[in-house]
């Protein structure tokens, strides 16, 4: 009898309903943004085909250390935000603000790193008008940077709200939406970085 009475609980645990964090609309936006970036990557590859030597020569002027460190910054930022959501789910609301603050500060760090890189390029006289590679470099990293600025603003907002105790394990839709968007920003950079900085010619 005791075995029988335990079975439904165990079964219920296994069939825990599948769900998307946040609201469905955010996932539509994330999906649409992902498709737009995939099309941009495709167009970049087509343009690269037109002048391989120019793209390769220009790629060598980029500093891959910047790109690699930027990747580590965003991965760490995403991790911090994922920890915030885990803490919320487990009812550890007091830990949530510090993780969101970590996410926002690392977002700021990424902006600073990108600014330094842009200033270096401008100082060397390299602009979007220099050649098609640089047009792509500034377009892809620029659109991504706008995503970072927007995401960091959202993280700052949820950090402030979480300090005031606005979120809990049963009230976490807004932070989940922000977190999902922030992870998108991370994963887009995971592709942009090797595409621009690391892809050598055959």
């Amino acid at each position, binding site marked *: 009898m005791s075995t029988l009475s335990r079975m439904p609980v165990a079964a219920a645990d296994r069939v825990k309903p599948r769900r*998307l964090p946040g609201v469905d609309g955010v996932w539509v936006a994330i999906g649409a943004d*992902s498709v737009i970036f*995939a099309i941009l990557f495709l167009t970049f590859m087509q343009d*690269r*085909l037109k002048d391989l030597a120019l793209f390769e020569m220009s790629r060598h002027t980029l500093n891959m250390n910047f790109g*690699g460190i930027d990747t580590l910054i965003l991965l*760490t930022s995403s991790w911090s935000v994922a920890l915030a959501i885990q803490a919320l789910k487990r009812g550890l609301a007091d830990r949530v603000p510090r993780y969101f603050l970590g996410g926002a500060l690392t977002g700021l760090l990424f902006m600073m790193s990108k600014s330094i890189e842009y200033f270096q390029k401008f100082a060397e006289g390299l602009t979007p008008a220099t050649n098609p590679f640089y047009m792509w470099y500034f377009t892809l990293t620029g659109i991504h940077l706008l995503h970072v600025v927007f995401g960091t603003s959202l993280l700052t907002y949820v950090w402030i709200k979480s300090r005031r105790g606005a979120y809990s394990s049963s009230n976490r839709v807004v932070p989940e939406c922000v*977190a999902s968007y922030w992870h*998108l920003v991370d994963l887009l950079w995971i592709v942009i970085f090797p595409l621009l900085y*690391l892809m050598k010619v055959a």
Partner: protein
Amino acid sequence: MSVVPERVTLVWLGLVVLTCVTTWGLSKDLFTPAVAVVGIFLIAALKVRFVMLDFMELRRAPIPVRVAFEAWPVVVAAMILGFWFATSTVA
């Protein structure tokens, strides 16, 4: 407080290691361009997959949504590598 690290922490550590392998390993001239580029983009696709499954929590998402999102790194990596190999035959 648990002494066992969160899964997201283990995933983050793995992603950091893979990033270092890509940036400061595969990109060097120790490898042929084909090996380097294939390795770099397969690792990028793997990293995207783990960000999706563990950071974005798509592991527990409805199956059609999970499949649609998991297709993204596969399609993007296949498209980039497809173009790269087409380009290498042109070059």
